[in-house]
């Protein structure tokens, strides 16, 4: 008898999805769950997110590499799409590596998992707060950085990367801190 799959709208997950991640049903992803591989994933995610955030500066490739307008647009578009999808894929792997604990509701976790999830969110709050503060200071104190401009560089890549970071930071911290079983 199939039980109804409860949807947790606030967390953006389903009961079956969380339970599937919490168990070892997907044994093909077991390699992701060692601490070493989780930390490698966190480093790759950090690099990827930084690359996406710097996307607004990529048009300078044209002047640096002496490319024609058409070539530059193609390289720029393909690279941007590739970087965004790579980070998205990294985020999916990251969630699998920490069994989706960071996004799971209380009722599907045990007391230790709730504790480590909450601790990760506490550090993520600090981390995200410091990053936002640094960006605000850069906008205010360093206009030559040109984070937001009316033409060309509209800051959209920075916003996309901040959205990635907002979603992934608790999982990244969890992946970094959790020991092996």
């Amino acid at each position: 008898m199939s039980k109804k799959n409860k949807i947790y709208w606030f967390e953006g997950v389903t009961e079956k999805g969380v339970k599937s991640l919490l168990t070892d049903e997907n044994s093909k992803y077991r390699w992701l769950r060692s601490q070493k591989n989780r930390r490698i994933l966190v480093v790759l995610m950090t690099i990827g997110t930084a690359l996406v955030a710097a996307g607004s500066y990529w048009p300078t490739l044209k002047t640096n590499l002496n490319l024609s307008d058409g070539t530059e647009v193609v390289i720029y578009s393909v690279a941007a799409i590739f970087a965004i999808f790579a980070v998205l894929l990294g985020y999916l792997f990251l969630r699998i590596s920490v069994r989706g604990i960071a996004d799971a509701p209380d009722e599907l976790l045990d007391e230790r998992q709730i504790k480590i999830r909450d601790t990760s969110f506490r550090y993520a709050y600090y981390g995200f707060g410091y990053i936002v503060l640094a960006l605000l200071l850069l906008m205010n104190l360093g206009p030559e950085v040109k984070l937001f401009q009316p033409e060309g560089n509209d800051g959209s890549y920075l916003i996309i990367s901040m959205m990635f970071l907002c979603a992934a930071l608790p999982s990244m911290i969890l992946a970094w801190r959790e020991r092996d079983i």
Partner: protein
Amino acid sequence: MLFSMSRNPEEPVYNRIEEARLALGLSRQELADKAGVHYQTIGYLEREEYSPSLVLALRIAKTLNQEVSELFSLTPFKKGK
């Protein structure tokens, strides 16, 4: 250490969960299912890397047919006892 984050230096709670579990012939997964926790949590408990709440300690003790005081202690258990 780079990126080190503070961990709560809890007072360790020593236990004999593994000994009692093996005596009953239970796997970690079976004990976890009966106690209503993830099997990883049983692993953390057995390695004394996590101190359980009173409710969980009572549930585990009941599952293993033991008194909480027989299973958990603030001082190390003597070998063979």
